[in-house]
């Protein structure tokens, strides 16, 4: 029974992990930018939701679309104004500039939001229900459902909508896409904006299940990396698998080996996956 409960917790956590990594994987896969500031955008999303909840008294789950919108605008502006300027440079440079962004965002967050720990705590935060002897925390379940829903939504969006097709076209062949009349500067900015909007939602959900402060970004970026690598960058469904896999692996490690070893487990898995199959568990073989 303990094992089943731990597995359930791992799966619920894994859904949220998947959503965290989704934006990173999208931006990485389409724009070839490893966004080291991804975690910082997650953090901003968490604060946006937090302030909508505490100041505007909006239910955190209703606040999510607004947080997503704010983060989309921010992401769009960052890509359009800064990242588009260096995107054709050497690979180090995009890595470096997003690191610089992370430093700036974290600093500003600490300045405006202070370094205090905060949690988004709606009245129903502690509600659980019973499912065949297992305890299901309501908030976690809702976060899980939203995460999976958004991942599937992104998948459908990329596959079937017109802007989604443009994004895929740009990632496959920039020149050919331009010849078909796609304006890459805008599509790149939209893609990055989508990535940060997803980060924003992930942040809002993270704030309802865990504590937030301005410094959570780096660790969340690292986690998102691991998931994106495990799942592969080819399609959002791989990211779900990567997220669930990591959530379960961390929970099992915490149960059987010890909570301090969860990072060893996740990064150990990361290195193994990279060495055995660098395109991800579900990715195409190179």
């Amino acid at each position: 029974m303990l094992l089943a409960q731990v597995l359930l917790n791992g799966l619920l956590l894994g859904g949220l992990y998947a959503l965290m990594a989704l934006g990173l994987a999208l931006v990485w896969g389409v724009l070839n930018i490893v966004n080291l500031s991804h975690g910082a955008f997650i953090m901003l999303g968490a604060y946006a939701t937090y302030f909508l909840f505490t100041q505007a008294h909006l239910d955190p789950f209703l606040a999510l679309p607004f947080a997503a919108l704010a983060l989309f605008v921010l992401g769009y502006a960052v890509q359009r104004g800064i990242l588009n300027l260096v995107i054709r440079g050497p690979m180090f440079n995009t890595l470096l500039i997003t690191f610089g962004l992370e430093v700036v965002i974290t600093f500003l967050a600490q300045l405006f939001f202070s370094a205090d720990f905060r949690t988004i705590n709606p009245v129903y935060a502690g509600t659980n229900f019973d499912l065949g002897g297992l305890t299901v925390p309501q908030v976690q379940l809702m976060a899980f459902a939203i995460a999976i829903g958004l991942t599937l939504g992104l998948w459908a969006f990329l596959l079937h909508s017109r802007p989604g097709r443009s994004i895929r076209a740009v990632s496959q062949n920039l020149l050919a896409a331009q010849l078909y009349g796609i304006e890459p500067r805008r599509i790149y900015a939209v893609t990055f904006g989508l990535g940060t909007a997803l980060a924003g939602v992930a942040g809002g959900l993270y704030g309802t299940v865990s504590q937030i402060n301005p410094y959570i970004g780096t660790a969340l970026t690292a986690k998102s990396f691991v998931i994106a690598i495990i799942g592969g960058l080819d399609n959002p469904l791989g990211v779900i698998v990567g997220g669930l896999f990591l959530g379960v692996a961390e929970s099992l490690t915490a149960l059987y080996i010890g909570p301090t070893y969860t990072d060893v487990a996740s990064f150990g898995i990361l290195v193994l996956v990279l060495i055995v199959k660098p395109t991800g568990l579900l990715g195409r073989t190179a």
Partner: protein
Amino acid sequence: MTSRTRRILLTLVLGLPLLAAVPWIASPVLVQFGINMLIMATLAQGWNIIGGYTGYSSFGNSVFFGLGAYGVGIAMAQFEQPFWIGLGLGLLLAVVFALAIGLPVLRLKGHYFAIATLGLAEVVTAIVSNVPIAGQNVGLVLPLLKSDVLFYELSLGLLLVATLVVFWLSRSRFGLALIAIRESEEAAAVMGVNATRYKILAFMLSAALTSLAGGVYAYYITFIDPAGAFDISLNVKMIIMAVFGGPGTVLGPVAGALLLSVLSEVLASKVTNIAGLFFGLVIIAAVVLMPRGLADLTQKFRRSGWRYFAQNIRDHRL
């Protein structure tokens, strides 16, 4: 002798005595700052070999730094051996680790290599935190040697060795092979370069220099623990300094490390509350305006002036 060689030698001949004289004229605080700065420059130079010349952006160099530090720590604190034995032990650990890890990991390219080495760094940190001989989470306390002058000159010597190694690299067959690998691994292989062997040798060389810096630093601060010795942000700093100065050049990473160290030190003492912000903005501005680093800037700025910055943006924007 080309003009570039002459400039490098001139910088060394003029700069060295000046730098070496610092501990005898400057205040103790400045000497301590100098030690940190020289160690950082050595690390940036070590990263330059694998990251700048070979084009493999390693996030595992902080592991080599940590192994070097722990070599000295274990030898001195646990076995009461002299410093030099510890330095050798750390060097051995780092080079063997680079060899063992290089074989599987150097097959990966681009981002994947960067992230695999990042993952390894996390794993090694966690392992060291659980090894009794390395003091586990508590760390090790080394015997105290109160001589900043000695550490300063030692760090300077180490930076000199690292720079000479890179200088040699820049004009040897070995270095040319690394550059060929960076530019196109397939093309290099076609030209008969054994890419795997050269990459691993470059990784080991980078590991060796980095571990020596780690060893000196451990003895200097007399205390090491896993979180400090294997700090990933140290690796990020190496990269920033090398890239800011100019990766794949002889003096670029040193110049980058010196300039950024001074900059962040001055900012931290003058305007503490915005130092972090400024550092981030400098990185962003540097990547946008001078993506090939200081080395490229000093070469071309004289010819094209301010248009140099506009040209960079035009070259790399979408």
